[in-house]
């Protein structure tokens, strides 16, 4: 296993910038997920690491070796393709043995390693089958075994679960994570499914338009998004546009005054991001603790989601906040709230995250 270091990686197609100045270090044994909306450059980045795409600029180092200009077969990466790309004219065992054969591993040893790899993915009994005689999930696991059996320096997966049904996706996801931990694989995992990324990865790389927006653990990304894009893309956020009038004091465009943590930011235009689950709901007139922010408005929509309920509250003007609360017990007066009722929202100052304003809106949806 080796460390993977990308430095200022860039790829352009004519005027299109597919990947722009991506720098990233994946530590030994770490699983990093590349996450972002369609067309943001995830696949391009991964394929540059594997050597299928020549970078326009930048450097790729695997285990201390500069591989930027090496052809794919000399890079020592193990890739799992979205379509699995199994060789249809070879049996499962021959598929898995292919990489060992290319490395001139003696036959007896190769057979043993193939058997081990197949039992690792629980397919020990299917070695003699052809790929077309397997289910999608089984083919997926053959693809995993084929890539793993050669002990690649870096393990690359491009949306490996997207062709599986929801239930299987969950199963294989857990399986991949266990294998990756057990074998200590340095792994880059591409996905556009944020839940997949959050549950699977040690660290996430959020990309948009070819640019890395933020790198961090799931917790860091969720608690401290670096910008409005990340705030909206990882989980959901309420966003209020406005300005910081003085340290610790924010005023929304609609005139709502909010106390925020004083983070040393200079006064000026700013955006405020608020997680819906940090808001609490009260009937108007209920006492509000002095340290809490509050806003009064009209309830426009209540969505019952079982364990939680969602309340959309229209403040003055065109500002809307969404609060997600554990569904109150049936006896609670909050349960009788209906659209049109006046309500008060409260939240602590430390639930507010000030971000640089830009044209972006709430992308959480």
């Amino acid at each position, binding site marked *: 296993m080796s460390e993977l270091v990308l430095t200022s990686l860039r790829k352009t197609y004519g005027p299109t910038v597919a990947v722009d100045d991506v720098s990233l270090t994946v530590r030994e044994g770490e699983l990093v997920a590349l996450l972002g909306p369609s067309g943001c450059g995830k696949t391009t980045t991964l394929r540059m690491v*594997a*050597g*299928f795409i020549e970078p326009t600029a930048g450097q790729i180092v695997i285990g201390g070796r500069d591989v930027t200009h090496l*052809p*794919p*077969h*000399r*890079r020592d*990466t*193990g*890739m799992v*393709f*979205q*379509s699995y*790309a*199994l*060789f*249809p*004219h070879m049996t499962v065992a021959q598929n898995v043995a*292919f*990489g060992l054969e*290319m*490395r001139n591993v003696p036959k007896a040893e190769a057979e043993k390693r193939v058997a081990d790899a197949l039992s690792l993915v629980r397919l020990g009994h299917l070695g003699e089958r052809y790929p077309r005689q397997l289910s999608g999930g089984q083919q997926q696991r053959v693809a995993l075994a*084929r*890539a793993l059996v*050669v002990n690649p320096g870096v393990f690359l997966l491009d949306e490996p679960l997207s062709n599986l049904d929801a239930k299987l996706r969950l199963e294989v996801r857990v399986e991949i994570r266990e294998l990756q931990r057990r074998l200590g694989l340095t792994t880059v995992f591409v996905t556009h499914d944020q839940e997949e990324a959050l549950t699977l990865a040690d660290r996430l790389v959020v990309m948009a338009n070819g640019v890395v927006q933020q790198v961090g653990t799931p917790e860091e990304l969720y608690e401290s998004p670096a910008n409005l894009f990340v705030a909206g893309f990882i989980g959901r956020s309420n966003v209020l546009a406005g300005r910081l009038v003085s340290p610790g004091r924010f005023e929304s465009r609609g005139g709502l005054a909010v106390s925020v943590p004083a983070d040393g930011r200079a006064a000026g235009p700013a955006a405020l991001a608020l997680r819906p689950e940090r808001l609490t709901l009260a009937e108007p007139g209920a006492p509000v603790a002095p340290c809490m922010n509050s806003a009064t408005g009209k309830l426009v929509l209540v969505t019952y989601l079982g364990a939680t309920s969602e309340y959309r509250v229209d403040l003055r003007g065109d500002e809307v906040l969404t609060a997600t609360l554990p569904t109150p017990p049936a006896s609670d007066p909050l349960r009788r709230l209906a659209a049109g009722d006046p309500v008060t929202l409260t939240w602590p100052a430390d639930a507010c995250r000030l971000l640089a304003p830009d044209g972006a809106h709430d992308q959480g949806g």
Partner: protein
Amino acid sequence: MPAAGPGRRWLGRFALRAVATVVFCFMFLPVFFVAWISLFDQQIVSFPPDGYTFAWYANALSRPEFARGFVTSFQVAAVATVIGVSLGAAAAYAIVRFRFAGSGTLNTLLLGPLVVPGIVAGTALYVYYVALENALDVDFRATLHGLVLGHVLLTIPWTVRLVSASLVGLDRAMEEAAANLGASPLTVFRRVTLPMMRPGLVAASLFSFIQSFENLELSLLLVGPGRITLPVAMLNYLEFRIDPTIAAVATMQIVIIGALMLISDRFVKLSRIV
């Protein structure tokens, strides 16, 4: 319509079978007649036959021009197939794999020989060979290599079509997977691409061979003394006599080509390609 469903489906299946049977009969009727006539015990063919005999087969086998024609045709077809399929497959690979300026035009151009009538192509080649002979001082007319070269033209359109078809279905990711596992470009080609092209190559070889073997028009002007192909030999024979010997030769030819098809069907299911 649960009640109408099965009845309708039965009717549909029946209609399909009926049409298939009719078409099949229509296509095989000439073959059947040729085989039948080859056994008629009479010089001039008339129905019903006076009796049956194998004499025409004996006659065909005893005439040296047919045996020589068969050997010549076989040689020409074999060599033309090897050359034509190699060139055509390489062209198909280049066209499908590397999108270059003019690859579409090249693709169309390579199908050209299909639309030029054989007689025209034969005449053009003849004139071209005369020019070549003057320029190079090497014989082309009435030579084996001249004939083979002409037949290579017949094999290329089929090969390009069939091999392209087998390549288009080949997922590029498979070749990438092989490279990713440590295979050099040559090994990728040998271990992944080539095996995937195999059905296309077998079909192309078979079609090329048959095209060349039974070709008359293109060969007419290119054959020379001692290098007469079987179809030309048959035509020559017909100039002097019309008797069932020709039917006997044709029947043997059909049997040989049919056997070839059956053999290649063992390697690739032809029905899956054509």
